[in-house]
């Protein structure tokens, strides 16, 4: 246990009272570093593993700090009363948590040992052996599936999707965690009925999966690109209308038996 608590990792934020990423009231730990470079990413400061400086409201802000599991757990523990009432707990997010597998595992294992429920938001973008190590300590896997077409996936995220889709199948087959599929709905990338239907059909075939979340694109991260001195490649693209999201939800329900929810 002591080893676990002293395991170090790099995070860029901890957000309490998070109610859109897993069940109940949760504390999200944002791990720094990602393998993808999704154009729409609302946390661009999460992508690089190195500690960066970002301009926020005209002031420089250091993004990223190295912490131990014990330090993270101290914050997570503060809201235990809320987890107990709401069925919430800890959620790892990023970045891609699997980029820091040892730290992610230590966090999840510690939380489980302390009776706190666990979830992880992840693209599953790592060798399955890495994921397999984590699964015993993970109650809910919130897995992003962004597209079924490898070429388009590569164009918009910088990587092809074969490994992630394969991992999704393996995670589902393992039966060790509750797998929920989440789809960021991004106009110009995957927001057509055909593309969403493709993802839904894929998810529907995964054993044990009964839930899919459609997360509408939003622009709340736009200012951060400027703060990092980067260009925002999605400039001018509007979030999908509510009607469009409702339509996509119907599409999902038509082509699959999945329970579909808009938003997290």
């Amino acid at each position, binding site marked *: 246990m002591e080893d676990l608590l002293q395991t170090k990792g790099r995070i860029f934020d901890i957000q309490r009272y998070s109610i859109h990423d897993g069940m109940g*009231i949760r504390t999200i730990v944002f791990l720094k570093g990602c393998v993808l470079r999704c154009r729409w990413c609302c946390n661009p400061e999460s992508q690089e593993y190195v500690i960066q400086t970002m301009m926020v409201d005209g002031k420089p802000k250091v993004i990223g700090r190295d912490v131990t599991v014990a330090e993270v757990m101290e914050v997570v523990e503060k809201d235990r009363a809320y987890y107990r009432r709401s069925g919430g707990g800890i959620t790892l997010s990023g970045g891609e948590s699997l980029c820091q597998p040892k730290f992610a595992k230590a966090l999840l294992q510690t939380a489980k040992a302390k009776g706190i429920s666990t979830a992880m938001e992840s693209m599953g973008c790592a060798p399955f052996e890495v994921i397999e190590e984590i699964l015993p300590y993970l109650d809910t896997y919130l897995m992003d599936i962004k597209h079924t077409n490898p070429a388009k996936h590569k164009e918009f995220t910088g990587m092809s999707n074969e490994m992630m889709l394969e991992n999704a199948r393996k995670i589902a087959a393992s039966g060790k965690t509750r797998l929920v599929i989440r789809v960021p709905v991004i106009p110009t990338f995957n927001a057509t009925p055909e593309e969403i239907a493709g993802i839904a059909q894929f998810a529907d075939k995964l054993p044990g999966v009964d839930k899919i979340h459609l997360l509408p694109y939003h622009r709340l991260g736009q200012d951060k690109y400027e703060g990092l001195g980067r260009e925002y490649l999605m400039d001018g693209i509007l979030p999908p209308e509510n009607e469009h999201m409702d339509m996509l939800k119907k599409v999902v329900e038509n082509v699959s038996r999945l329970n579909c929810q808009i938003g997290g």
Partner: protein
Amino acid sequence: MAKYNSSRIPKTERITRLVEHLYAKMPEIESARAVLVTESYKQTENEPLIIRRAKAFEHILKNIPIIIREDELIVGSSTIAPRGCQTFPEFSYEWLEQEFETVATREADPFYISDKAKKEIKEANSYWKGKTTSELATAYMAPEALKAMEHNIFTPGNYFYNGVGHITVQYDKVLAIGYEGIIAEAKAELAKCGVGDADYATKSRFLEAVIISCEAVILYANRYAELAAKMAKECNDAVRKAELETIASNCRKVPAEGATTFHEACQSFWFVQQLLQMESSGHSISPGRFDQYMYPYYKKDIDAGKITREQAQELIDCIWVKLNDLNKCRDAESAKGFAGYSLFQNLIVGGQNEAGQDVTNDLSFMCIEASFHVFLPMPSLSIRVWNGSPHDLLIRAAELTRTGIGLPAYYNDEVIIPSLMSRGLTLEEARSYNIIGCVEPQVPGKTMGWHDAAFYNMCRPLELVFTSGMDCGEQIGPKTQPVEQMRTFDEFYAAYQEQMNYFIALLVNADNAIDQAHTERMPLPYLASMVDDCMARGKTCEQGGCVYNFTGPQGFGIANVADSLYAIKKLVFEEKKVTLAEYKKALMFNYGQEVSPLVVAQVAGNVAREMAQKGIEPNSDTVARASQEIIKQSVTAEDKKKFEELLAMIDNLAKFGNDEEEVDMMAREAAYTYTKPLLQYYNPRGGQFQAGLYPVSANVPLGAQTGATPDGRLAGTPMADGVSPSAGKDVNGPTAAANSVSKLDHGIASNGTLYNQKFHPSALSGEAGLDNFVNLIRSYFDRKGSHVQFNVVSRETLLDAQKHPENYKHLVVRVAGYSALFTTLSKSLQDDIIRRTEQGF
């Protein structure tokens, strides 16, 4: 099978029309009551005071104009104009005459007043010179207390200028036996009075006064019966005609007799509620556990098929409208502190019975439904939450919260019950508690709680630590050790405690002086007829007739004091980055920011004192010139830079409201500097002082009287509200803020604590959003928070409402313990609400 039916009930068109009618124009001040009370007093000069009070009440009820408004099913209006108000010159009157010309145009709670009313009120007022409660109270106060009030350390203005109110009477008793039953009890008690008894004179006259008052109420109801019958006769619409006939028969029967139908019970309730506010000008007369005492009448009619749920709902909705028909004009300063035309009629649903079982019923849900339908600030709807509260009820409550109306307020049985027991209530009584006004718990029908007894500004004694008790050139507090000589934080803290203790004693002095004045000049026999144990003791509530007696003045500014003490501890004594002398200068000159009038007043005070000491007669010209010079010379460019640095250092420190242990513990200690010393004091009614921690909306106007504070707050800006963190300083989200607040000792503040949280509606969206919201409340209560209420409205909406008030006539926000119409609030209070941290994600 569920113990209640929680299904939703649609709103009828009648309710829409009633609300529209009520808000058609600006409320108006009427003169009838002032004229009548004065007439009566002139005719009864040599009679016992208690009889004079009863006869005045009778004279008013016999003669005051009455009206049945269009579409009403529940009748009884204190004024002809909707939302109008009467005046109460016997408590105080001078302020109103001084404000005659500005009352219609002032920012907070304006009232129209006609020239005719002005003339009549002025004429009536002339009788009251030297006879009011406020004049007598002043005469009883210690000179130091008056001085402290002059320097804005505290203000007991509420009962200084008005009636006390702040009580819940035995509505259940009136519903059951009517005033004829109460008169019979008074007569029986009277028969027991022996002419040789020591208290024969006071007790017998008191009981006679009770009888006169109750008979007057019956007479008043009969006037309504006659008016309704007359209107029915003249009415051509068959439906309305039948309604008016029912009204007539109801008013003939109740409140003289016990109610038999739900409609009668509603009418009977209403006369009690309305006429208590005709007898005296006290506010916060709180209906309390309406869902409990009304339930037998509802159940009986429903079971007998006499009424449908829809009809019962409409009647409850009508009562909700009527609760907004009552109004009160306060002086301009008080109006800012109690902004929003609020009468704080607190009505609470849910909770436990005496035996500790949950008593949620159909009416608990229908009361929430009524607030959905009527969507107005009154009643101050509250909900009791305990471990056994049905999830359904809390979800329905959360749905109401989500609308942004600021209702209901949530109260924690698990804290309040033991807290009340620590003040001497039995377990059964404590389990039956309800809430008075904003947040004050007590047992109904037995308590004269004198809640809301004063605003005590906890930041002002902190200012005085820096000046060793000197304010604007006058020594008003103890001469504590000069800060320049202090070597440890403990010395500083001890000086703060000394200043606090000194002014707490003066606050008690002022409150007790006012209490005594009410005892002597304003015994209220009608009120006493419905509170135990007045009749058996032969005393009114003011005279100590109640079973439980308290005085509950509220302290505020905890977050400011906590952040200030923490900043001093860290920056001065631990990190040694700044000296107290430097801090003192920064505060004196408002951190080098704009020269506030408060800075000028302090400097000018000192200049005048020094001149006087040198034997120079200070005149306003020389003082002003010398002060200008001092202010100009005192703050050099180097100072300014230092002040900026100090502000930046303060900004980087931990603040209360972020779940950081050390500063949160400082807040806990800071609260104790107010809550603990108060407990040693007693009032003339034999009751204990108990602290509340809530500001109503006074954190804004009283902040305007408070100089810069060591937490970086600038002179004249609003202070933190209630036990909430300072606006904008809680940045770790709602659970962190709630955890910080729950670290205070809420139990010892048995007069109530108030915690405001602001939410963006998106945080409550969908079923999961409601669930999480309810669980947030439950968890905060698990951690022993006492009260929480929410503002759920987007910042954009509020900004737009400021720009286009005409489009937001009905926008209700939770201000502090009550809901108010946003557009009726002053600009500064609107800004404060907008500034509060928005916690949507």
